[in-house]
């Protein structure tokens, strides 16, 4: 939907301008091949597009400082470039203007819980260098039901919004699992939630991060449980403009630093000792003692150490922002723990 409309806009815009000014439409193509990294470095600040307000991912606190999972990625990138987490301009973007902001160069990177899809990757001219949060559709039930797994939901009534892929996913999953269910279909989200709270259905289904936000807004969040099963794919990650590989590399490997640090057990608390004592070759390369990996990316060799010191590793970020919402690691656990977070080797 969105990508279609945006690319239509772009085509319309180019066409309108070409007719109006008889200028070649080529010049209007947002083919941003210029080196974003050099531009950011000479500007001295990173422009980071964030959500206007989504619990856990990006939201301003009472003092107007941005907090959240996505915000930590902005800070990590600023540290990688400048060794200063405060050199970020947070640009609040809405679902409608986020891609334009990236295409027009208003922002350098968009870590805004955006699902990576083929059309966004191609026709929208974006790149998704990393997937930092594997979201997906899940179920929430009342703790008093005593249900521990979605497989136990045979014969349950399930609250769901109509006409979305959510409803389709739900039907598919129950059919594939050979279970029966009765849908309770309500259009408006607030009414849907109050129907679930009032007990009109046993389970409520939407994306897991949405379930977690709903759960934390309940008077007593402990009364509700988000089941571990996730039945659809919503891979979220930071996106950059297509065609600037150096910049995409930096974004990708900054994410990998966070994941690799967790895998190696290096956190913001012990990173100084690790620099001093850790003899594992992988850790030494990650921490920039050998290999000169930072230089290859165009940043200092100590970038990974700085990033870990400033924002922590992936697990720390997750625990700080998403665990309080009741989001479990699930598919975002390390690959060694059966999850999907897997960093290619640092060498």
């Amino acid at each position, binding site marked *: 939907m969105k990508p279609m409309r945006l690319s239509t806009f772009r085509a319309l815009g180019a066409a309108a301008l070409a007719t109006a000014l008889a200028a070649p439409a080529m010049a209007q193509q947002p083919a941003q091949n210029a080196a974003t990294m050099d531009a950011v470095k000479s500007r001295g600040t990173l422009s980071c597009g964030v959500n206007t307000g989504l619990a856990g991912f990006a939201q301003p606190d009472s003092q107007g400082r941005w907090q959240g999972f996505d915000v930590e990625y902005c800070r990590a990138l600023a540290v990688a470039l400048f060794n200063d987490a405060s050199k970020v301009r947070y640009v*609040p973007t809405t679902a409608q*203007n986020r891609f334009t902001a990236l295409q027009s160069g*208003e922002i350098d990177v968009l870590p805004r819980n955006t699902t990576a899809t083929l059309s966004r990757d191609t026709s929208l001219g974006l790149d998704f260098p990393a997937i930092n949060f594997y979201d997906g559709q899940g179920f929430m039930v009342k703790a008093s039901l005593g249900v521990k797994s979605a497989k136990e939901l045979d014969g349950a009534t399930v609250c769901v919004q109509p006409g979305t892929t959510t409803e389709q996913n739900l039907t598919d999953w129950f059919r594939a699992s050979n279970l029966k269910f009765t849908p309770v279909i309500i259009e408006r989200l607030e009414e849907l939630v109050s129907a679930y709270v009032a007990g009109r259905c046993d389970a409520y289904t939407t994306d897991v991060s949405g379930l977690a936000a709903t759960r934390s807004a309940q008077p007593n969040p402990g009364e509700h449980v988000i089941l571990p099963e996730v039945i659809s794919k919503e891979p979220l990650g930071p996106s950059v403009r297509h065609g600037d590989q150096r910049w995409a590399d930096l974004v990708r490997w900054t994410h990998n630093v966070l994941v690799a640090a967790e895998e190696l057990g290096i956190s913001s608390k012990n990173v100084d000792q690790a620099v001093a004592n850790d003899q594992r070759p992988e850790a030494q390369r990650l921490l920039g003692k050998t290999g000169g990996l930072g230089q290859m990316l165009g940043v200092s060799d100590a970038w990974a150490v700085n990033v870990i010191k400033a924002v922590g590793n992936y697990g720390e970020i997750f625990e700080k922002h998403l665990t309080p919402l009741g989001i479990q690691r699930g598919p975002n656990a390390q690959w060694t723990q059966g999850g999907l977070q897997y960093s290619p080797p640092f060498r």
Partner: protein
Amino acid sequence: MAEITAEATAPRPAQDAELGHRRPPLLAVGPLAWAKANLFSSWISTAVTLALGYLLVRWTMGFIDWAFINAIWSVPVTPQGAQTQACRALGGTGACWAVVTEKHRFILFGTYPYEEHWRPAICVLLFIGLYIVSAMRRFWRPALALIWLATLAVIGVLMWGGMLGLSYVPQERWGGLVITLILATFGIALAFPLSILVALGRRSSMPAIKTLCVLYVELIRGVPLISLLFMASVMFPLFLPEGMNIDKLLRAQIAIILFAAAYLAEVVRAGLQALPRGQYEAADALGLTYWQKTGFIILPQALRLVIPPLVNTFIGFFKDTSLVLIIGIFDLLTAGKTAIVEPAWQGFGIEIYVTVGLIYFVFCFAMSRYSQGLEAELNRHRVR
């Protein structure tokens, strides 16, 4: 209409003198008589009065219970976050004003650096001072334009900083009430002169100017403000060469000015049309040039005719500025909405919306009252 009724009910001096000093019966004049005539004139009227009175008292008491007696004004805030259990325990029987206590600075100033909040605070006061000064007739002289320029320059310096020892604050960190005031003030201040030109142009005898003005008004009025904002925010940047960015706030501001001007132009045109033809002809007969005629004869009369619809449009635009939320600018309403995203404070929307609504009300009500006063004063010669 008002004049006629006022005349009909006014006491006749001659009759009053005849009646002398005898007091009328208690039930024929005064509040009791009024109540009897208007509230208890028949059994059906009495029943409606009692039923409405009961509901009014119940709702008022319920509101006072909710807003004051059962309300919680603050909760402890620990490093782990605000402890809102006490508020949640109320279960809706009382207001949780703690959310306003905790978030009021965010609602008023958005993501502006916390230590520098005094700067937007002064700007808000400057705006209010500017409104008050502009409202007083004794300041209506050319120097007022200088006062506006100077104040807006000071506001600009305070908000941006980067000089006089103030730290630089980029635009995307501005937010809250000050954004609403900036959008509304600049919007109305620039749209109003533009609208007068467009209105005059639309009545012009020169075909090119007339066509241009008609096209402008019809095009802009033909689309909703929200689509103009989308154009400014989504489409316009794609026309610009790479690396060239026009500030998002400025883009939104221009869209609002263009939109407001189209509507105001039609209001002004109504005033121009309402003026009797004799006024135009008399001015022509005196040998005045077009601009003399317009400036001294036509506009002063036309504008005072249309004060009510003008203020109506102003008030509408003051509130329409909240639409900038769709392009990610934190105006007063968006800041309020964002304040309750934090999990600890989710579900306390009513308190936030009541507060934000109250702020909007203060500004809009002041505008409305002022326009009533202005209307009475400027149209005094019409009241015979």
